């Protein structure tokens, strides 16, 4: 297919869709009504649930803080609470912009510029969030031994070997994949921004 063929296909499609005029008052009223109701229900379930789990976990550690009997465990406990709260806030911040509708009457290039800047911010926040999640994982493994009481499992040296080694291997592979994907997106978006400012 050459450029002329692309143009020809586009024109053929234009003729095909021009022949059909299906929108009438009744259909339009129904569409508008449904659209209005959908705006009332615009709740992002996974994010809300994720945030609730983070806050719940922070509260749980707070309530069981007395179980952390040494100063080092108390420091880890405070760190875990902070991480849960920060991750929750970062997650909400990174998705917040997705629902901000801008001025749709603006020139396309302005919308693209805003889109590109927000996308870069989003990727950077997600990367930060991921890094903090690793730290959180380590703190949670450490706290498990105190928060749920000492038992055969947590007293076993295998618990520590397996939890840390499996956690570490998982994190290495997962982070490699995620960072690669975010870095690619950031690079492409920065190129677009450069092109827009030329």
């Amino acid at each position, binding site marked *: *297919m*050459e*450029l002329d*063929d*692309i*143009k020809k*296909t*586009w*024109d*053929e*499609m*234009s003729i*095909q*869709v*021009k022949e*059909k*005029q*299906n*929108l*009438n*008052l009744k*259909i*339009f009223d*129904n*569409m*508008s009504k*449904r*659209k209005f109701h*959908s705006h009332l*229900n*615009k*709740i*992002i*379930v*996974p*994010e809300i649930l994720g945030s609730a789990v983070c806050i719940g976990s922070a509260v749980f550690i707070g309530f069981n803080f007395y179980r952390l009997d040494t100063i080092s465990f108390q420091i880890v406990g405070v760190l875990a609470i902070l991480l849960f709260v920060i991750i929750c806030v970062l997650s909400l911040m990174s*998705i917040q*912009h*997705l*629902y901000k*509708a*801008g001025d*749709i*009457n*603006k*020139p*396309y*290039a*302005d*919308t*693209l510029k805003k*889109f590109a800047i*927000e*996308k870069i911010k989003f990727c950077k926040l997600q990367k930060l969030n991921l890094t903090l999640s690793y730290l959180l994982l380590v703190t949670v493994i450490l706290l498990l031994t105190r928060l749920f009481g000492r038992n055969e499992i947590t007293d076993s040296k295998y618990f520590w070997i397996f939890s840390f080694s499996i956690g570490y291997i998982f994190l290495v592979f997962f982070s490699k994949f995620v960072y690669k994907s975010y870095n690619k997106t950031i690079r*492409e978006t920065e*190129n*677009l921004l450069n*092109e*827009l400012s*030329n």
Partner: protein
Amino acid sequence: MENKNGFIKEINENQGLIFKIASIYTNSIEDRNDLMQEIVYQLWKSFHTFDKRSSVSTWMYRVAMNVAIYYLKSAKKKVQTIPMEEQFLHFTEIENKEMEEKWQVLKHHIDKLNLLDKGIIILYLENKSHEEIAQIIGISVSNVGTKFYRIKEKLKQQILKQ
């Protein structure tokens, strides 16, 4: 009511435009239909602000392409879609199989362009002049010329590679 009838008339006259833009910016029929509905809804919301300094189609292109960008932002996080009215949906079906195949090849080539180039090539294919493209995109006429030349080269390279 008169306003609404006027709007519906404009949509009917330009629904091909909405279909083509929605189709280029999405990768599934479901997403395309969602985007089409979103474009119609946003056009209606800003219909009263249309000041008639530009043509209706120029205004529609601008709004439709902007809505497509906002849709790209939120599509992955979307949890709820609204079923589109059957009758309105009907016109979006490409009835001819050969046409569908050709359309997919066209889409494949355009998909490889970045969002700015995508916007420019859509308007070129819609027979818009460089002045109109500059007005809709918001860049200078000379910039449109330069970018258009580069896009043509990119497309040529893409086609040759295949």
